[in-house]
Structure formats: structure tokens, C-alpha cells
């Protein structure tokens, strides 16, 4: 049973398993909020901190003693849920310590801990978190995050965990690819300007699809997406005519009923001359009247269809979990060995040399005070001082070495430096 009170690597967080979306949304920190939050935790005694905040998780990675750093984190999170009592906030969270904390981050960066198994977006989010927190990360977390990115890359390269299309948006791209083959140069019309529409439009754009139009009830948001993807913002009414020419129509409005109806687009699509039209309806409730799919060359897919495609990819990815976990374990062992031995040997040497200098100085002083001593007596006193020093240093040396072997050397080393006034390594 390890003692958790000392300095060590700790993770305190909430994620998609422990908190519902509305709570996770409250805990999410924007990039500008991260340094401020970390500064508060550092002020509470943490030696290093990185805050990883995505839509699925908010996790504080700390090198710290649990108290008072954890208290600060809980209160930081609690401030975001003012109506919830402190104990309620803690129920959403979890704490992972030491080796498990290292393994946890490696699993996160590999996509093993994601809602969509093996998704690659998390790799970029881990990198971003590390870069934003770099000034406050400290040497241990700096190395931990650096290696986490390496582990993520290894898992994606050496296993099939990232293969296939495991999200509804990327499944939409896959389905469109089965109709058109190469998507480069195809045109897309986007209806709606919400997050899902933007994500799916970005997926299409990444495949070379030209997002020509973004149609939305409110123009401002449509304009922002259109500008980013090189298209033009139009009103919904203006969009119907473009069903005659576009290759892909991506629908994700917040309308409570179907907006793409037979009456609106039936005659327009009929005039396409048999050219295929792929309609991806990502909205719930659906945006597209199913009757539209009766037109011969219309291929209509809703969220359920795309989730079926995504689920198939996920099933294939599941087979890759054991191989990915093996890499995570292997890399965790490597990090833990590095962390365990971090500075212990030089610290022991430095401690012994300091004690030796102290012993020599005190011995000289004692010899001066004692006056004339026979060489035998001088040798006996010197031997006594040596033995005494060895006895004093024996237990700390053994404890440090044992802690290093258990991977807890770093915390004890910090205590040693403070107690004996030793300078931390440059």
C-alpha cells in the first residue's frame, strides 16, 4: 500500500464516464483560462501542472502533494458549479496516482480512453494542453507529456486502433467516398452552422471537397464557417436551387422539423440528369424528408445510418485494444523507471559529500579543542566520526534507493533537498 500524501504524479479530473455532458461543459477551460487555473494550483504548492480540457474531459495533471493542491482543484471546479455542494462536485471526479497516472495519460493520448475508440483528435488536444501549460509543467510533466505524444503515435502506427471511420462525421465522408470515389474537387452544400455541421464540413474539406455554400437561419455563424472553409454564406431559401448542382448536401440545422422536403427540392433534384447526390442528414430531429430518397440518384443517410458505419469501424478497432495496451504498458514501465531513478544517485552522492565536508570540518575543530592527541587516539576519533556519519546516512540512503525502485524517488528527493538545503538540479 503506497502512501499518497507525498509529492508525486497525480491526476484529478472528470470525464465522459464520470460526468454528463452538461457538467463537463461547465468544467471545460478555454485556452486563456488554463494559465490562471494552474497558477492557483501552483500557488497551493504544486511543483508542476498541466490542464487537459476537451469536450470529454477536464484533467489536472500535477506533480504535487495531495493537500492542499487537490483542495484548490476541487474549489476551482466547484466554482463552475455554484449550485452544487462541494461533495456533489467531488462525485463527478476521480483521482489517479503515480504509475497509474502515467498509464492513464498514455491511454488518453492513444485514444484508448476516448468515447470514440482510437480517435486521433485527442493527440492534438494533449499536445495543445502541454503547449499551453508548458511554463507551469515542470520537468516531470514536461517529459510525461512528451512521451505521451510518442506513445499516441506508436499506437496509431503500430496497431490498427486508428483505422476506419469511427465518428458519424467521418462515416459520412466514407459513405460519400463509396459513391464518388475520390472526393477531391467535389462540391458540398452545408445546411446549418452548429458544431456538428462545422465538424462534418471540416472532415469533407480535409478530403478535398469544396464547401461552396453554407446556409443557415442566422448569417453571422454561417459566414464564419464559410470563410474558414472557402465558401459563401447564403440563406436557407437561397440554398434550395443549389441542390441541382452540388454533389454532397450536409444537413445539420437545429430545426424542429424537416427543412429539405420533396416540395422544396424534388423538382430541382429531378433536373440533375441522373448525377448522384449524397445527402448526409446529421440533424436530430432529421432535416430531410425521407421521401426525397425516392429520387433515383439520391443517396440519403441519417445519423443512425452513419452511426452504423462508425460502429462497424469501432468493432474492428476493438480487436486492436490488446496490442495498444501492450504498448502503453511498455512505455509506462520505461517512464516509471526514468521517474523512479530521477536524480536519486546524484542526490545521494551530494548528500554524502556534504556530510563528509561537515564531518571533516567538525573533526578539525574538535582536534584543535582537544589539544595534543596521540596518532592512535586521533585515528580512533576519526574512525568514530566516520562510523557515526555512516550510521546516520544509512537509513536515508536505503529509503531513497527503495523509493527509487518503487518509482517514488522524486517525492522523497524533494523532501531531502528541502531538509538539507540542497540545490535542485539545473
Amino acid at each position, binding site marked *: 500500500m503506497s502512501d499518497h500524501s507525498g509529492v508525486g504524479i497525480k491526476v484529478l479530473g472528470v470525464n465522459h464516464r464520470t460526468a454528463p455532458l452538461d457538467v463537463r461543459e461547465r468544467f471545460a477551460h478555454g485556452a486563456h483560462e488554463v494559465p490562471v487555473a494552474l497558477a492557483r494550483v501552483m500557488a497551493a504548492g504544486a511543483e508542476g501542472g498541466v490542464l487537459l480540457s476537451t469536450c470529454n474531459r477536464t484533467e489536472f495533471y500535477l506533480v504535487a502533494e495531495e493537500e492542499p493542491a487537490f483542495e484548490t482543484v476541487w474549489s476551482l471546479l466547484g466554482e463552475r458549479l455554484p449550485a452544487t455542494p462541494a461533495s456533489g462536485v467531488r462525485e463527478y471526479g476521480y483521482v489517479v496516482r503515480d504509475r497509474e497516472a502515467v498509464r492513464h495519460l498514455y491511454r488518453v493520448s492513444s485514444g484508448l480512453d476516448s468515447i470514440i475508440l482510437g480517435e486521433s483528435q485527442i493527440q492534438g488536444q494533449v499536445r495543445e494542453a502541454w503547449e499551453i501549460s508548458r511554463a507551469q509543467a515542470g520537468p516531470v510533466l514536461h517529459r510525461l507529456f512528451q512521451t505521451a505524444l510518442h506513445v499516441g503515435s506508436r499506437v496509431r502506427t503500430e496497431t490498427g486502433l486508428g483505422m476506419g471511420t469511427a465518428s458519424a462525421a467521418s462515416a459520412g465522408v466514407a459513405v460519400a467516398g463509396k459513391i*464518388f*470515389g475520390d472526393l477531391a474537387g467535389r462540391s458540398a452544400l452545408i445546411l446549418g452552422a452548429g458544431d456538428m455541421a462545422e465538424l462534418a464540413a471540416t472532415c469533407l474539406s480535409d478530403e478535398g471537397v469544396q464547401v461552396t455554400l453554407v446556409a443557415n437561419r442566422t448569417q453571422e455563424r454561417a459566414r464564419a464557417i464559410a470563410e474558414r472553409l472557402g465558401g459563401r454564406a447564403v440563406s436557407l431559401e437561397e440554398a434550395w436551387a443549389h441542390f441541382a448542382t452540388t454533389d454532397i448536401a450536409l444537413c445539420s440545422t437545429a430545426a424542429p422539423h424537416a427543412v429539405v422536403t420533396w416540395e422544396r427540392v424534388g423538382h430541382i433534384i429531378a433536373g440533375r440528369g441522373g448525377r*448522384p447526390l449524397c445527402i448526409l442528414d446529421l440533424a436530430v430531429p432529421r432535416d430531410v424528408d425521407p421521401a426525397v430518397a425516392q429520387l*433515383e440518384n439520391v443517396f440519403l443517410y441519417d445519423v443512425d445510418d452513419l452511426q452504423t*458505419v462508425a460502429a*462497424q469501424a469501432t468493432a474492428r478497432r476493438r480487436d486492436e485494444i490488446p496490442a495498444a495496451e501492450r504498448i502503453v504498458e511498455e512505455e509506462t514501465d520505461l517512464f516509471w523507471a526514468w521517474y523512479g531513478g530521477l536524480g536519486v544517485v546524484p542526490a545521494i552522492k551530494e548528500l554524502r559529500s556534504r556530510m563528509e565536508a561537515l564531518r571533516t570540518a567538525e573533526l578539525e575543530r574538535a582536534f584543535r579543542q582537544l589539544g595534543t592527541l596521540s596518532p592512535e587516539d586521533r585515528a580512533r576519533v576519526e574512525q568514530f566520526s566516520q562510523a557515526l556519519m555512516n550510521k546516520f546516512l544509512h537509513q536515508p540512503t536505503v529509503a531513497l534507493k527503495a523509493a527509487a525502485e518503487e518509482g517514488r524517488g522524486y517525492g522523497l528527493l524533494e523532501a531531502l533537498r528541502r531538509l538539507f538545503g540542497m540545490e535542485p538540479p539545473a
Partner: protein
Amino acid sequence: MIVTLHVIVLALYGLGTALALAPFLGLPSSPRALNIALPCAGAAAHVLAISQLTPVGLGPALSMLALCLVLLQLASERLLRGSAVALFTGPLATALVGVALLSGLTPGGGAGGVEAAGSRNAWFILHVALSVSGVALMALAFIAAALYLLQFRELKARRFGQVFQLFPPLERLDQLNRFALIVGFPTLTLGVLLALGYGARFSGGLHVAKAQIVWGMFTWVVLGWAVWVRVVRHWAGRRAAFASIAGFSAVLLVYVVLKLAQPGVERFL
């Protein structure tokens, strides 16, 4: 030697077909390199066998058709990066080699023997090679059309099973169909023209049966019509796929009817 080589070819094509069919039967997919290597090895042995054949009679004609199909399959695999074409060409080529072995690979007596004498002429060999290639390209257009219709049905019905996963995209199958028809027509035309030229130059050197003329012209007309509707009438997608299937089915049907009327293995018709 010819028979032994054909038996080896039969085994390699058969194995290649089994590997291509495996994922559709729920078995694990084999590496792509192996899926290509087996028909490649089969085709190499097949070329060796055909170089020793006299291109007269049913057996040699079927064997040449099988080789053309496998070569087109390999070219399509490179183009489509999928083994779906092999689903059709694999069993078809294997069956054709099997039937060729059963019907005999050396020319018999009678008309076949007379033809064999004139068959060493380069014109004749070129005529046979081009004509068989034209028919093989027409068969490829038929296969692409069939794959298109199967994939179309799955996509419309929102079924995301093996066909969705393993078949090429619709657009690419449509392009393959168009390519096969457009290349197939001039190839067959040249083959027919060479036969006419050969007949005019070496009159009496070659027995041309009426059935051969009827089937050859019928195939040429059907292929020409399929190209015309694609290129001039701009048919594409499902309509073009149905046209290819109807055309090739008609060509096959006419062949079977003519063959039944004039059975025997000395001639392909």
C-alpha cells in the same frame, strides 16, 4: 506440356478465386500482395501455355478468353485497388480453363485441321487475339456493371455489409464500365476487319462458318450500340449498367443458341 501448364493455371486461378471470395464468406482477408501474386503467377504460366497453342477450336479460344479476363482483372485491381472484380473474373476464368481442358486443347481433324494449317499466319493470330480481347473487354464492362448495380442497391438500401465495405465506389465502377466499352469496341472492330482482310487475301485458306460471321457481327453491333449510348447519348450510372448487362447477355445467348445448333469442339462456333 500444354495440358500440364493448364492444370497448373487452373490450380492457381482456383486458389486466387478462393482467396478473393473468402472475405465475402466471412473468412479473414488474405494480404493484397497474395491476392495479386496468385493470378499473376497463373497468368505467367498461362502465357507460356498459350504460346504453344494453335489458336483454333473451342478449347484454345476459351483458354485465351480466360487469360484476357485475368489480365484485365489485374489491370482493374491496379486501377480500383480492390479485389471485387476478381469475384466475377476469378470463377469465370477458372471455369473457362476447366472447360478448355475438358474440350481438348489441340486442334482435331476436319475443318479444325484445315484451319490449323492457316493459323500460323500472323494476321490470323492477331485477328484471334484482338477478337478475344474485345469480347473480354465486353465481359469486363458487364462485370463492372454488375458490381455497380450491387453496390448501388446496397447504398440505396443503406446496408453497410461486405458489399459496401469491399466493392469499389460507384463512380469508379461506372468509369471502368465506360473504359472497357470504349477500348473494347475498336479492339473488336480491328479483330473483325483483320478477319475480313484475311478472308479477302487468302481466300480459301480459312473456313469461315456462317455462325461465326453471324455471331461476330452481332457482337460488334451490340458493342457498338453500348458505346454509342454511353458516348453519344451520355448514358451513365444505372442506365448504362443495365445496357451493358443486356448487351453482354444477348451476345452470350446468341452464342449458346448457335453452338447448340452446331455442336462440336473443333471450332469455337
